[in-house]
C-alpha cells in the first residue's frame, strides 16, 4: 500500500467513525441509478447503466448452438466483461486480467444461478439446438463498484432482449428468422456490494473507498429474497456476524433498488 492510500484511509476512517462518508452518503445509501435501454440496434438487447458516475454498457447477442452434454435440454447464458482503457488510467489493453475475469464471473453467477431465466425455455430441440445468450459488458467509466454497475447493466440488457424465432428445416439445420419474441424473464437478480474499511461496512463503495477497503462482499439477491451468489474479495476476514449483518441490510437495499429498474 502506498503512502497516499494510507493517508486516504486514515481520513476515510475518521469520517466513518463519525458515521459519515466522503460524498455525504449514509452507510446504506446507493448512488443514483440511471438506465438506458435499447440503444444498439444490431444487438438483440442492450443497456447502458450509470451507478453514480460509474458507467457500463451491456449488449446481448443471440446465437443458436449445441447444448452442453450434461444439460442437453437447456440453453446457455454466458457473460463476459472488458475493462476498456478509456474507463480508467490503470486499465490496459490485452487479454482480460484478474479484475475483468472476476467481474464477468461474478455477474455471470448472479444471473446463472437465479431463477430469472428459465434455461429449459431456451431449448429449441433437445440435444441439438439451443439458444445461446451472450452478454458482453464494456466498462466505460470506473468510479468504483463495477460489480453492481455491471450486474445492473447485464440485467437491464437482458430485460430488453428480443429472442429471434428459429426455424428448423428437414435436414435439421436451424435458421434464425426476423420474427422475435421478448426473452422470458422472471424478477431479475440484483447484486449489492459492501466494502469493509476498518470495522465499518458500507454499501456501494466509491472509487476512493474501493482503493482503501480491506475486503468486500458482493451478494446477489433473487426476486424472492433468496441469495443466488456471493463473492468475497480481499485479504481481510469477515466475522459470521458481519456476514449476517450484510445479508440483512443488503436485502432491504435491494428492495429499494428494484423499484428503480425499468419495468418490462
Amino acid at each position, binding site marked *: 500500500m502506498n503512502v497516499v492510500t494510507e493517508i486516504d484511509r486514515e481520513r476515510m476512517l475518521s469520517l466513518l467513525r463519525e458515521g459519515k462518508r466522503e460524498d455525504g452518503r449514509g452507510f446504506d445509501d446507493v448512488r443514483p441509478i440511471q438506465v438506458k435501454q435499447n*440503444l*444498439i*440496434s*444490431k*444487438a438483440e438487447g*442492450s443497456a447502458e447503466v450509470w451507478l453514480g*458516475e460509474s*458507467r457500463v*454498457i451491456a*449488449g*446481448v*447477442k443471440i*446465437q*443458436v448452438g449445441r447444448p452442453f452434454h450434461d444439460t442437453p435440454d437447456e440453453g446457455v447464458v454466458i457473460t*463476459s466483461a*472488458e475493462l*476498456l*482503457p*478509456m*474507463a*480508467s*488510467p490503470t486499465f490496459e*489493453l490485452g*487479454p482480460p486480467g484478474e479484475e475483468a475475469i472476476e467481474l464477468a464471473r461474478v455477474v455471470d453467477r448472479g444471473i446463472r444461478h437465479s431463477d430469472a431465466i428459465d434455461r429449459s425455455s431456451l431449448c429449441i430441440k433437445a440435444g441439438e439446438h439451443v439458444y445461446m445468450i*451472450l452478454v*458482453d459488458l*464494456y466498462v*466505460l*467509466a*470506473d*468510479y468504483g463498484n463495477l460489480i453492481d454497475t455491471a450486474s445492473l447493466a447485464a440485467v437491464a440488457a437482458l430485460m430488453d432482449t428480443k429472442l*429471434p424465432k428459429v426455424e428448423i428445416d428437414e435436414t435439421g*439445420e*436451424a*435458421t*434464425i428468422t*426476423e420474427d422475435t419474441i421478448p426473452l422470458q424473464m422472471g424478477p431479475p437478480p440484483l447484486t449489492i456490494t459492501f466494502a469493509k474499511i476498518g470495522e465499518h461496512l458500507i454499501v456501494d463503495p466509491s472509487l476512493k473507498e474501493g482503493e482503501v477497503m480491506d475486503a468486500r462482499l458482493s451478494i446477489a439477491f433473487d426476486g424472492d429474497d433468496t441469495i443466488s451468489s456471493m463473492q468475497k474479495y480481499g485479504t481481510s476476514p469477515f466475522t459470521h456476524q458481519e456476514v449476517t449483518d450484510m445479508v440483512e441490510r443488503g436485502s432491504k437495499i435491494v428492495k429499494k433498488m428494484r423499484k428503480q429498474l425499468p419495468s418490462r
Partner: protein
Amino acid sequence: MKPLSEKTSEEKTPLIDSKGLRTDGRKLDELRPIKLEVGNLSRPDGSAYIEHGRNKILAAVWGPRELHPRHLAISDRALLRVTYRMATFSVSDRKRPAPSRREHEISMVVRQALEPMLFTELYPRAAIDVFITVLEADGGSRCASTTVASLALADAGIPMRGLVAGVAAGKIDGKIAVDMNDIEDKIGEADLPVVMSSERGEITLLQMDGKLTPKELAQALRMAEDGIHQIHEMQKKVLYEKYAKIREEVGEVSQDTYDDILDDDLVEDVATDAPVEEEKPKKSETKRKRTTKAKKTDDDESEKEKSKPAKPRKRAKPKEEETS
C-alpha cells in the same frame, strides 16, 4: 445457420431507385445524419462521441503521459498509439472478443491519419493514447472513427495543426456517391474511404477497393472532399459550443479572471468561422515554443508551413459565402 440481417434477396435489390434516391432515401451527394459530442467521458483527458448513420463510436485520449514500456520511447517526439476495437455486439454476427486483423489494420491507418496533425515533437519520450470503441457499426466506421478521434485529441488539449474528418465515397449502381452505408459498402462497386484536413487540403487516409476509372476516382474524391468539409464545420461547432459553455460557467464565478486567461479575439474567430486567421497566430506561437525544443525538425517544418497557407485560403472563401 444464416445470419440475421443478410438475406440473399437483398443482393438483387437496386441501391438507387427510379427517383435517383438511395436505400436510405438519400441523394447521391448527401451525408447520413451526424451527431457529435465532446467530453462524453469524464475520466480520460479528452473524449468524444459520434453517431454517423448507425455508427456509434466513442473515442478517448490519455496523454501526453508517461510511456510504458519505456523502450518504445522516441527521443525527439511523442509516440501516438491508436487502438480501434469493435464491441462484440456492434455487428449482426457477434464479433469475437479478440482483436481481428481488420481491427489491427484500421488502428494503424487511423493512427497515420491523425499523426500529421499533432505536434508530437513537443512531448519527447511521452505517449499519447487514443482508444476508439465502436459500439455499433455501419458502413464507414474507420472514417467516423478518425473524425471522432480528432475531436477527442482536441478535447484533450493536445496542440494540433488542424482537425481531420473522414467520409467514404464510392460507386453504387454505376453512379458515384458519398458516405456509403452498410449495404452500399458491401454490394456496391467501389468504396473509397478518405480522411483529410479540410482547412489544409491534406489527405491523411486513403484506401480503396472495387473498380473506378481515373475520371470516377476524381469525381469520388471531390465528393468526399465536400462531405469532409461539412463534417469539419460540425466538428468546429461542437468544440466551440463546449468551450462557450465552460466560459459561461467560469464567467459566473469571475468574468475578469477568465478574460485574463482567454483571449477574446480567439474565441470570436472560431465563432465567425474564419479558419485562416485563426490558424495563423496559433501556429506561430507553437512554432516559437518548438524551436527551443527540437531544432532538427524546424527546417522541414518551416518549409511545410510556407507551402500550406495557400491551400486553405482557396477553400476558405466559399465557406464564408455559405455561412453569410
